[in-house]
């Protein structure tokens, strides 16, 4: 028996392709685009694409956990708005126009970022607790977050908060080796953390189990409630990081438009990347591919001067197609 176990671990090309079909799609798209628009693979353009997708990508690395646990997080976009407005208000130097708190000195950039992330964590803890203990559908609970956080952002400031201090903006505007934008590095760090937690920690395994069969997970001694709370904290923290970065990148924070519908794009990326909405299935590499596919579509269609409504048509086709494949792949196992 042990012999068979060892021999069957050999690399299986068919399985590899079926599990990574999204990467195949990505490669085809990249090759096609490069042929018709040679600037596509230029350093500048790749940087633009990654910078632009980083924030939604970070959200996707959080939201995928909620989907994995058979939930959803519709509140992420509003958390982006709330955190961006609050954080921005803390880093307005004294004397600038439209300062929200005219008397208050600007906090150091890192301190404001920590405050923003802490607020995200708090929101996540609250919504996670509600979901875990009242058992209301995550769809509803996070729809509540969406409305409440957006409103809180608008209450906090009725106008865009701008003129942010340079030591805050460095989070998004800095560059490593003069070439890699810091926002992309943070994106990669969140990717690494999320992937590490997913595959290398007990927390990750617990969430796979809860998403796969929460009753069985409970019987196996997993504290389902506590783990679900952690999931929503993580998702909200990712959104908060997104909020901090969005304010840092644009140098402003508009409570009414920032983060609008970001959660939908993040959900789309996670879904295209093979995160199953029936729970229990997710791969971090898939989600990364999903983010890149959406990025390539957004970027490529601009380069090709294609009507932007078309881009949504294509996005729609990809999302539905991805879910069809996903369902077929997992149908036999359910």
């Amino acid at each position: 028996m042990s012999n068979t176990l060892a021999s069957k671990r050999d690399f299986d090309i068919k399985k590899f392709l079926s599990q990574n079909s999204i990467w195949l799609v990505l490669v085809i798209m990249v090759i096609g685009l490069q042929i018709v628009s040679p600037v596509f693979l230029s350093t500048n353009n790749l940087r633009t694409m990654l910078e632009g997708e980083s924030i939604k990508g970070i959200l996707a690395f959080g939201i995928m956990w909620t989907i994995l646990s058979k939930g959803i997080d519709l509140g992420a976009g509003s958390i982006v708005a709330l955190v961006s407005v609050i954080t921005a208000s803390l880093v307005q130097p004294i004397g600038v126009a439209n300062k929200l708190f005219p008397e208050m000195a600007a906090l150091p950039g890192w301190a404001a970022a920590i405050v923003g992330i802490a607020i995200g964590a708090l929101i996540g803890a609250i919504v996670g607790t509600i979901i875990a203990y009242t058992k209301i559908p995550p769809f509803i609970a996070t729809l509540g977050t969406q409305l409440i956080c957006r409103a809180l952002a608008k209450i906090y400031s009725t106008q865009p908060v701008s003129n942010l201090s340079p030591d805050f903006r460095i989070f998004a505007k800095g560059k490593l080796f003069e070439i890699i934008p810091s926002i992309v590095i943070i994106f990669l760090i969140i990717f690494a953390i999320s992937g590490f937690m997913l595959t290398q920690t007990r927390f990750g395994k617990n969430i796979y189990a809860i998403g796969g069969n929460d009753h069985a997970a409970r019987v196996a001694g997993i504290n389902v409630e506590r783990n679900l709370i952690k999931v929503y904290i993580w998702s909200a923290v990712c959104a908060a990081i997104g909020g901090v970065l969005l304010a840092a990148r644009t140098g402003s924070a508009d409570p009414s438009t920032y983060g609008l519908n970001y959660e939908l794009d993040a959900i789309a990326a996670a879904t295209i990347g093979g995160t199953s909405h029936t729970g229990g299935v997710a791969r971090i590499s898939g989600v990364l591919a999903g983010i890149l596919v959406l990025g390539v579509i957004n970027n490529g269609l601009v380069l090709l001067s294609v009507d932007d409504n078309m881009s949504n048509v294509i996005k729609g086709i990809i999302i539905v197609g991805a879910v069809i494949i996903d369902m077929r792949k997992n149908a036999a196992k359910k």
Partner: protein
Amino acid sequence: MSEEYVLEMHDIVKEFPGVKALKGVQLKVRPGTVHALMGENGAGKSTLMKCLIGIYKATSGKIIFQGQEVSFPNTLSAMQAGISMIHQELSPVMERSVCENVWMGREPRKGIRVDHKKMRQDCRELFQKVGLDLDPDEKMGNLTVAKMQMVEIAKAVSFDSSGGIMDEPTSALTESEVEHLFKIIEDLKSKNVAIIYISHKMDEIFRISDEITVYRDGEYIASDRAENLNIDKLITLMVGRTMDKMFPKIECPIGETVLKVEGLSSGRAFHDVSFELRRGEILCFAGLVGAGRTEIAETIFGMRTRTAGKIYKEGKELHIKCPEDAISNKIGMLTEDRRGNGIIGLLSVAENTVLANLKKYGFPLSHSKIRADASDFVNKLNVKTPNLETPIANLSGGNQQKTLVARWLLIDPDILIVDEPTRGIDVGAKAEIHSLITKLAAEGKAIIMISSELPEVLGMADRVLVMHEGTMTGIVDREDATSEIIMKYATGETAPQS
């Protein structure tokens, strides 16, 4: 020649991705007979039936029903043609009424409106016909599993089929309900209905079947009249080798008390249950379905709230609120509903094995240690799996069960509760699980085993605790235990106080 059979299946092949589940099997059923399909789990019986009624489409092969070649696109068309199936896994809509469940998808209508009055009346007539005493408006979810099973059977009867398939119909039924079912089957037989009967219970097979076809590993093995076979011959055909003893009980010394339960109650499920469990002992909970046996186990394990009573382990009182607490006190529980709260189907065999014990693998998790432990248990417990990464849902029931046993062994429990450990598992795996449990007891673990199969209880138990409708009616020692005594207590007679 072909008129002799109501149903013929020839050279049926069914391929799943990576697996050839049926490798060209055949089946010939005569009208007015009960035809038993036998084979270990994974032999292909259920798959063959699913190909027949249109849940799966056979990759190749020929199906001839009532002299005509057929291929049903779905179960409804199979039912309309006269073949209905009672599934192994019940799938009723819990939130709707019994009556709606019976007529689902074919509700009688008046114009475009559903005729609820007729539906209810037809349902009453149907229940009368099969002798089921049930209110059509009762919510399905309120029924016991046994009653649900009877509703499913009634539903199958309602189709006036010329062929019926029963896949493990008695798995949740009590003895009297089984008798009732057999009466229904006799009645159907007399109406020239052919019945395909799948079960792992040998005594049932030999009682009601006229012919038996045996499959093994997706292949057709043999077909014969029941009177030409006996249990030993049948088992040999099924497993392809002669079996060891079914209940390989090892006599071992019984140690000190590990678990002491005093006056335990949980709501209306059961009340005032007291017993002691000792090291090396197998304590069986016997009783009819719904007597509260599972509920006692769930309460000890923290899945159910304790409303009264105390639980002591090695003299210390335990305050268990959730399975997590139970596990940290080295209590494991193999639950009855393997798919519902046992396995996590999408996760791999390895991941399922270590799930209750992830603490052991550190931060970050040591995947090599996980693999080592999982592969160790896969070998030790003889789990048949293509590899450790295979999703557990792809394994047969017996192998899933063995993986779950491995999960609990990994926490090195002092007390292991096993609830119906051999339900729906084929004969070969059954004996393996029995011998595993016995070995564990011999190693000094204390075992609580819940079983509805009397031979299993009698074969395995050191002592038998018998429940009747939430009350403990007696504890019987191994040497005193007979099926008569246990049945007597199980039906409500209490043991003389001593």
